């Protein structure tokens, strides 16, 4: 499904970009990560943006008192509080349409973000030693800590599924990326991505040694999943604010 969607997006974009009269390349920074994108105008009212963003340079945040079961896999045998360090983890492409109603810099933006569903990367640290020895088997992948550290993540798939996200976006902005009379331009955007239902994932080791992120079943970590849900249930939309600097290619 993921391959199909990406292939479809590429096929759809090839003729648009190939026929472009003007095109800019831009770099940006915001809550959707550090981004690079191509922007081409389609007539006077619309421009198409295709790009890629990855979280970088945004400081982490630590929740000091996350309660985890003292013994992995058993919620009834007491708990212990450990810190959870979180940082933005986005790593995805985007396909957006800017609509300039008055041919000026003000624009509405619609489109979507596609790619890895990881929104927030996290690390539980100072876990009890049992977490190093034993873990939870999720579909053949063993989730356990290494030296007291367990890598986890919040995945937000939007309308996608599992680890692949399709997150619709709407927003407004100011600035035109492609201007025939200027070589360089600037644009800012503010909007929101729909995140869907966020879930807890963690790094697991497969039987043959391969590692991958796997979704933690809600009953596997006792109160921890409830605690995580108490934070993530407000994450229905992701506020997206970014600024881009463009250079016209032709």
């Amino acid at each position, binding site marked *: 499904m993921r391959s199909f969607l990406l*292939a479809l997006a590429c096929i759809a974009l090839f003729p648009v970009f*190939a026929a*472009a009269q003007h095109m800019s390349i831009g770099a940006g920074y915001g809550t959707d990560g550090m981004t690079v994108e191509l922007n081409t105008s389609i007539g006077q009212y619309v421009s198409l943006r295709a790009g890629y963003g990855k979280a970088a340079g945004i400081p982490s945040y630590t929740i000091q008192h996350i309660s985890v079961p003292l*013994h992995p*896999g058993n919620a009834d045998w007491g708990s212990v509080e450990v810190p959870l360090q979180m940082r933005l983890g986005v790593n995805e492409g985007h396909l957006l349409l800017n609509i300039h109603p008055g041919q000026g810099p003000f624009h509405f933006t619609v489109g979507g973000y596609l790619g890895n569903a990881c929104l927030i990367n996290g690390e539980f640290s100072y876990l009890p030693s049992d977490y190093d*020895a034993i873990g939870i088997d999720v579909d053949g992948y063993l989730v356990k800590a290494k030296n007291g550290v367990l890598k986890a993540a919040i995945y937000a798939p939007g309308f996608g599924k599992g680890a692949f996200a399709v997150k619709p976006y709407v927003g407004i902005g100011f600035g035109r990326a492609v201007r025939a009379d200027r070589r360089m331009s600037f644009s800012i955007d503010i909007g929101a991505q729909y995140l869907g239902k966020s879930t807890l994932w963690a790094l697991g080791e497969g039987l043959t040694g391969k590692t991958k992120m796997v979704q933690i079943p809600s009953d596997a970590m006792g109160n921890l999943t409830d605690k995580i849900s108490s934070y993530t249930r407000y994450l229905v939309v992701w506020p997206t604010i970014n600024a881009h600097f463009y250079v016209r290619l032709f």
Partner: protein
Amino acid sequence: MKTILRILTLSFLLPLLLSCNPVSNDTDFDDPAFLQFAGRLTPKGVMPGTKASSSLLPVGSVTSIELTESGLYAIGIVTDEAGTIDYRTGKYSVTDNVYTLYSMGTLAFNNSVSGQVSLIYTPLFGETQQIPAEFLKPKSTNKAFRTWMVEKTRLTVRGWTVVSADFKGCDLAEIAEFLRNNGNKAPEDVPNLSVSTITLTGTETMILGYSDNSAELNEFSLNGNVLTYTWAERPDGFTFISDKAVIEYRDGKCLLTIDGYIRDSTTSGSVTFVLSPMD
């Protein structure tokens, strides 16, 4: 210039397509090295593994010899007057019709077809014996039919907790300690042994080879990827009550998973052996 820029623009989109890596599972293995020499020798009048018949045999008699597709042998020898059979394993080599069983001796017989053979057994220390025997060549071939080294064991225990752990190899004492530490029953007198090899032969014998070169033999049948076997009663209490195992192949490994429960315990669980070909 504009054309170059357009080409560069289009190439900007290619990484999206390239990110669609197909998943590949390498599940092909070369044929085992001793495929044409493999088979089972049963000295005449002996039903392998049964005390009733072996108790009639003098101590030291050979009850059966498995010659596996991967060059491993498992020889059954009567060790006491009650007819107890001990199995020993080791590697063998073949020159024409003469099999050299390392640490055991040599066998000479006509290995070309299944049937009655005149087996000449020369133990490493002892007299040469000529024994009428039945030689059974493998009934079929299958990529599972070979000797597999136990690389890793994943144990999932479903008792008062549900936990999993990986163990390098399959050390029985280490696994027993893991069970006890997690509040499950485990025998105290577990021998300090590892399961080092698992062999499935074309004569439908499953051989568990231990780190001290002892072995345990069971019959099995394979239907698709489901292995049905008879599991011998183990004196150390590690008897998994299950007669089925599932075989999968992934990333050049064979995964053998047994679901079951431990005798005299409410603990259930699964054991997955991660196996790599010995040859």
